[in-house]
C-alpha cells in the first residue's frame, strides 16, 4: 500500500511540477484572495489582524477545491481511470498517494499565504508549535476529505459544480478548528488552541481511515 502511495504521489507531483498549475494559478489566486479581503475589510489593519486566521483558512479552503479538482481531472482524461483500475495498484495506496500530493501542494500554498498574512495583515506569531501542528493536521484533513469527495464527484461527471457543494460543508469543522487554533497561535493564548488542534487530528485520522477503506469501492462504483 505505501509503495503504491509513493508511486502515485510521485506521479502527481511530477505532473504538478511539469504543468505548474499550483505555482502559476493556485498560488496567485490565493494571494489575490488575501489582497481582496484586505481591500474589502479594513485598509487600516485593525480588523484584518483579528480576522487573519479565518481569512487565511478561507483562502486555503478555496485552494483545496482547486487542487482537488486538478487531482481528479488528471485521472479523468483519456481513460486514465480505467488504466488505474487495471493497474493492480492498491486502491488504498492510490488514495493515500493522491491525498499526499494534494497535501504537499496545499502546504506550499500555506507557506506563501502565511508570509502574506504576516506582511499584509501585520499579525504576530506567538505559538509556533501550535501553528505548525494545526497547519499539518488541518492540511491532512483537507487533503483526505478532498480526495475522497473528489473521486465521488468525478464518478458523477459534474465535478466542477458539484465538488464545492459536496465538499465545503464537510470541511467546515476544519475551517472552524483551524481558525480557532490559529487565533490562539497568532497573539492569543496557545493552550486555548490545542483542543482545536486535537479536533483537527481526529478529523484527519477519520477521513484518512475512511478514505483508505472506501476509495476502492468509490473508484469501482462511481
Amino acid at each position, binding site marked *: 500500500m505505501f509503495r503504491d502511495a509513493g508511486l502515485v504521489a510521485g506521479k502527481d507531483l511530477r505532473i504538478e511540477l511539469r504543468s505548474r498549475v499550483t505555482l502559476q494559478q493556485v498560488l496567485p489566486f490565493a494571494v489575490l484572495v488575501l489582497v481582496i479581503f484586505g481591500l474589502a475589510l479594513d485598509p487600516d489593519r485593525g480588523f484584518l489582524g483579528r480576522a487573519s486566521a479565518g481569512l487565511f483558512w478561507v483562502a486555503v479552503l478555496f485552494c483545496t477545491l482547486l487542487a482537488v479538482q486538478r487531482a481528479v481531472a488528471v485521472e479523468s482524461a*483519456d481513460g*486514465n481511470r*480505467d*488504466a488505474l483500475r*487495471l493497474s493492480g495498484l492498491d486502491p488504498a495506496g492510490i488514495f493515500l498517494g493522491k491525498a499526499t500530493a494534494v497535501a504537499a501542494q496545499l502546504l506550499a500554498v500555506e507557506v506563501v499565504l502565511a508570509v502574506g498574512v504576516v506582511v499584509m495583515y501585520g499579525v504576530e506569531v506567538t505559538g509556533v508549535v501550535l501553528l505548525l501542528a494545526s497547519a499539518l493536521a488541518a492540511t491532512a484533513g483537507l487533503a483526505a476529505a478532498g480526495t475522497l469527495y473528489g473521486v465521488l464527484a468525478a464518478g458523477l461527471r459534474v465535478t466542477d459544480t458539484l465538488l464545492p457543494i459536496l465538499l465545503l460543508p464537510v470541511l467546515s469543522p476544519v475551517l472552524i478548528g483551524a481558525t480557532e487554533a490559529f487565533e490562539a497561535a497568532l497573539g492569543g493564548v496557545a493552550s486555548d488552541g490545542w483542543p482545536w488542534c486535537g479536533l483537527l487530528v481526529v478529523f484527519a485520522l477519520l477521513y484518512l481511515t475512511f478514505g483508505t477503506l472506501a476509495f476502492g469501492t468509490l473508484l469501482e462504483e462511481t
Partner: protein
Amino acid sequence: MEPAVQLRGAVTLLGRFPALAGIDLDVAAGETVLLRGPNGAGKTTVLRLCAGLLPLVRGEGRVLGHDLADPAQARALRRRVGLLGHATGLYDELTVGDNVRFWGRACGASPADVEAALVGCGLDGRLRDVPAAALSAGQRRRTSLACLVARRPELWLLDEPHAGLDQEGRDLVDGLMRQAVAAGATVVLASHDLDRAEALADRVVPVAGGATGPAAPTSAAVVAGVP
C-alpha cells in the same frame, strides 16, 4: 489445460442497461482469436468484460482461472491482463518515458522490463523525453502499447490495435503480438483491419448484436495447419 477465456451466456451492464445478449466464447491458452463484427456489435464490451472492468451479471465467465462473477477475483485478474483500448491512458504532462515507467512499475515491472518495452516499441530515442501532450495520435498509441508490453500480461486484449498507426507501427504491433504468443501469452483482438488481423489470428469469432456466432479458423491458420 484450462482455457484462457471461457464465457457462457455472459451478460454485463453498461451503466444500468444490459450489454451483450449472452456471449459464448472459448479461447485456449496461447491462442490468438479475432472478434469480428460491425460497430456497436459488442466487441469492446467483450474485451472489457474479459479484463475484469465490467461486472458479469448473468451467465458464467472464467478468465485465466478467475471467476468473473466474483468481484474480488475479477479485480485480481486485472494485474494479469493488458487492455489496449480506444483511450490511451496516458498523462499528458508526463513524458513518454515517465508514462511507461509509471504504468510498468504500477504492476511490478522491473526497470529492465520498462526499458525493453520502450526499445521494443521504438520509443527509446528522442521520443522518450517528449511529453505525451505533444505526441501524434500514432505516437500516443505506440506509447500506450509500450505501457502494455511493460506489464508483460498473460492475456492481451486489443481493441483496434492497428487504428491510427502508420505502416511501420502496424508491423510493430503484429510483431509484438507474435512475440507475446511465442512467449506463451494469449491474444484476443477486435479489428476492422481484417487482412492484418486474420493473418495473426488462429480463429475468427463473429460478434453481432451482443452475441457470438460460430467460430471459424482463419485462412492463415488453415494454411499453417492449426487445428
